[in-house]
């Protein structure tokens, strides 16, 4: 190990799409509310956004809130069949006006400097 492992516990508050099993690839985003905003506004935004993308594009998404160690954090992760599936769906969503409007709106309540994103491949 190069450092100390980091454990976290997340409460799933919203799920969109079919999850027949663990996906092959996950895109993950974690952020905290901007000062003056609150967690519930961010959770509500994430739930509405994932529902929209699920209905419009068939995306599989989960919204979580952080527990001890990650308090006041919101997490959204999306499942994909492959990296190619992620690439194709991400390009389609990014070109959608509804998605763009929602992404513009979130900047009023989310602290962009805390945004941590990643794309991970399941190996087991």
């Amino acid at each position, binding site marked *: 190990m190069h450092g100390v492992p980091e454990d976290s516990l997340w409460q799933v508050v919203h799920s969109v799409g079919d999850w027949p099993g663990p996906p092959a690839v996950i895109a993950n985003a974690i952020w905290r509310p901007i000062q003056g905003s609150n967690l519930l506004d961010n959770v509500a935004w994430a739930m509405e956004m994932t529902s929209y993308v699920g209905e419009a594009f068939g995306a599989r998404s989960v919204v979580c809130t952080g527990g001890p160690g990650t308090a006041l954090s919101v997490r959204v992760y999306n499942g994909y069949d492959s990296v190619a599936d992620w690439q194709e769906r991400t390009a389609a969503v990014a070109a959608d006006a509804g998605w763009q409007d929602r*992404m513009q709106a979130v900047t009023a309540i989310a602290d*962009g400097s805390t945004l941590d994103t990643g794309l991970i491949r399941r190996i087991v």
Partner: protein
Amino acid sequence: MYLWNREMFLSPAHLNEGVAGLVDAVTHVNSVSDYEFRVWATVLGTFGRVGVGSTCEDFGAFSDEMATRGMEDEVFRAKVDAVGQSMAGNPEDSVWNILHTTGDAYEVQPVIAIIDNRLEVDQMPGAVMGSIDMADYLNGLTGTAVTVAVSQWGTGPSVRMMFGYDSVGQVQERTAVATADPGFMERAKAFQNDVGRSIESRSSVLRRIA
């Protein structure tokens, strides 16, 4: 077109063997891969920072090839284990969607300068437009090949400008021309006014070593 990067930091105690090991690993990869990988080292920025880069049309196929190599190519795995002894930390991967190029941006140039701006989501459209305008202007002014690319996953919302040069001397010469030019200064000021302050901004100059 996508630009894939792996950024690494070599331990100060193992700089030479780290560079040699990395070049050896990348040379092997280039002998078996469908893609061409290049190795870059710092001219300006943190010394010991090295990068591996490649371009691809389909990142899914590219990523799958790398994953397969990492699991099945025993020669590659041994080279990775060897060079890992010289690393000061874990590599950082990113993939950038190339939106705009000027000049011979896809040709392999010996020296590149990179500016990365991490932004809020609502700053992205203005930053992209401003960067493209600046790229076209600088290409007209100095002939510099410029690439504008964006990234989100793994980096947060970010815009990258990448400038290609024949030499470090050309970086110096063309930077002096640009910063003395009123049109460049106007655009730089307009960019700042229209886009606002970045969450984080980073610049570097790199030299290709393999």
